[in-house]
């Protein structure tokens, strides 16, 4: 579904992506793990065309999104929705209006249908009754969940989740994982998730890829990822020699 070929990107004089080649299967949940500051968020922004690669190609279906501009890019983006790492809720709108925003602006649904869908999503992320609040009145975890509700409300073809559970308590993190996994199964969209929740992501993902030093160090079906032989990857996911000694 999404294919990156030799993507390189330098930001602020620092080479962040050094030739990422990655293929995201359609209709599956693929999780990208990797150390902090390695460029996972940058990678997601390349997939949706918010950033352009310095070198390399980004394909979505049979369109090269990294070459699209203007109206064509807008059309391509209609297939996506994205949960940003910082939630990126609109400060000037209430939670309800934030979640309703893409429905009103993109689908032009009747208000009754908007209210129904928004209410349903807010309930699923545990924010029922919080719709009248403004983002500034929410905790970090609540913002994340409101952002998740906004990302899921459109039921698009592809959803990108940037750390959907960071800042949530373990129980809520579990609920959100279950929600992502079940909506993904139900609607069959292609999901790409960035997460630090090891080992939980191995249970809900179909595929896992690890970004390390600006490249994909390993990619495998979630169940087999644990058997990877790369010592750095093993160390990172806690099955390496050092981790075993510590454990």
């Amino acid at each position, binding site marked *: 579904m999404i294919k990156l070929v030799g993507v390189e990107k330098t930001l602020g004089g620092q080479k962040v992506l050094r030739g990422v080649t990655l293929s995201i299967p359609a209709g599956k949940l693929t999780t990208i793990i990797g150390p902090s500051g390695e460029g996972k968020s940058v990678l997601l922004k390349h997939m*949706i065309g918010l950033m352009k690669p310095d070198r390399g190609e980004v394909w979505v279906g049979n369109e090269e999104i990294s070459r699209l501009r203007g109206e064509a890019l807008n059309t391509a*983006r*209609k297939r996506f929705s*994205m949960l940003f790492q*910082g939630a990126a809720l*609109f*400060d000037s709108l209430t939670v309800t209006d934030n979640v309703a925003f*893409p429905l009103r602006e*993109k689908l032009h649904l009747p208000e009754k249908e908007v209210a129904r869908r928004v209410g349903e999503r807010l309930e699923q992320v545990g924010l029922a009754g919080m719709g009248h609040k403004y983002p500034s009145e929410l905790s970090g975890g609540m913002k994340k969940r409101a952002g998740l509700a906004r990302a899921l409300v459109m039921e698009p073809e592809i959803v990108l989740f940037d750390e959907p559970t960071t800042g949530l308590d373990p129980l809520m993190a579990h609920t959100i994982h279950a929600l992502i996994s079940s909506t993904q199964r139900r609607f069959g969209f292609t999901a790409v998730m960035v997460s630090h929740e090891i080992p939980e992501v191995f249970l809900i993902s179909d595929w896992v890829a690890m970004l390390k030093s600006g490249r994909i160090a390993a990619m495998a079906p979630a169940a087999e990822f644990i058997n990877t032989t790369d010592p750095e990857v093993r160390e990172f996911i806690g099955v390496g020699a050092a981790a075993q000694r510590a454990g």
Partner: protein
Amino acid sequence: MDPFVLTRSLQRIGAVTLFLLGEMGRMVLFLLATIGWLFRPPFRLFQVFKQVHFVGFKSTFVVVLTAAFTGMVLGLQGYYTLRKYGSEGALGSAVALSIIRELGPVLAALMVTARAGSAMTAEIGIMRITEQIDAMETMAINPLQYLIAPKIVAGLISVPLLVAMFDVVGIVGGYLVGVDLLGGNPGSYWSSIEAAVEWKDVYGGILKSISFGLIVTWVCCYKGYFTRMSAEGLGAATTEAVVLASVLVLVWDYFLTSVLL
């Protein structure tokens, strides 16, 4: 002495010139793109109303306050100066002409810059830093159309209205001091205004205020939209916006005046 001092300073001048030219080009492109989006549906009337409320209505208090004191000090200065030549009767025209032609548009624009313009830069800058603008783009909604165009339209609508208010309040302020307080002749205050102020003056004031409304919102939106991704970046953007908008207002005022006179 450094033998390369000449080449090096030439290099620096060149670099600064290139940067300024680039910045000007980017600003013009930003405005043209926004205008392009302005005329494409959907037309965001509600956003425009919201911005007129913010830029216009919420600036009335400071504009009225500035206008009152400007008029009053003009009344004071004008009265004593004109009395030296025995022409206190012309006080009204002196106050009205300075306010309608110059002080109304310029001071109102500067107050809008300080109050609404800086807040505009900060608001857009925060949206940039917290990725709200990116989020909007991922929803296939053009931020220039949704966010910027209504602000620029609001500037075009609000600033002329604020200037009109400034003119009236300023002239009344001059009356209060020059006539009520210092004992000038009330009849000649108004009649000298009627005799001296021409349609050309009013028209020039309106033209100025519309162009200032554009300059202030354009500069402040631009600086916010291209804020560098940090807290310092946001502070710098706000300062730059206020300084650049104020300077451009004064420079443009000079050019317009020299053309209009």
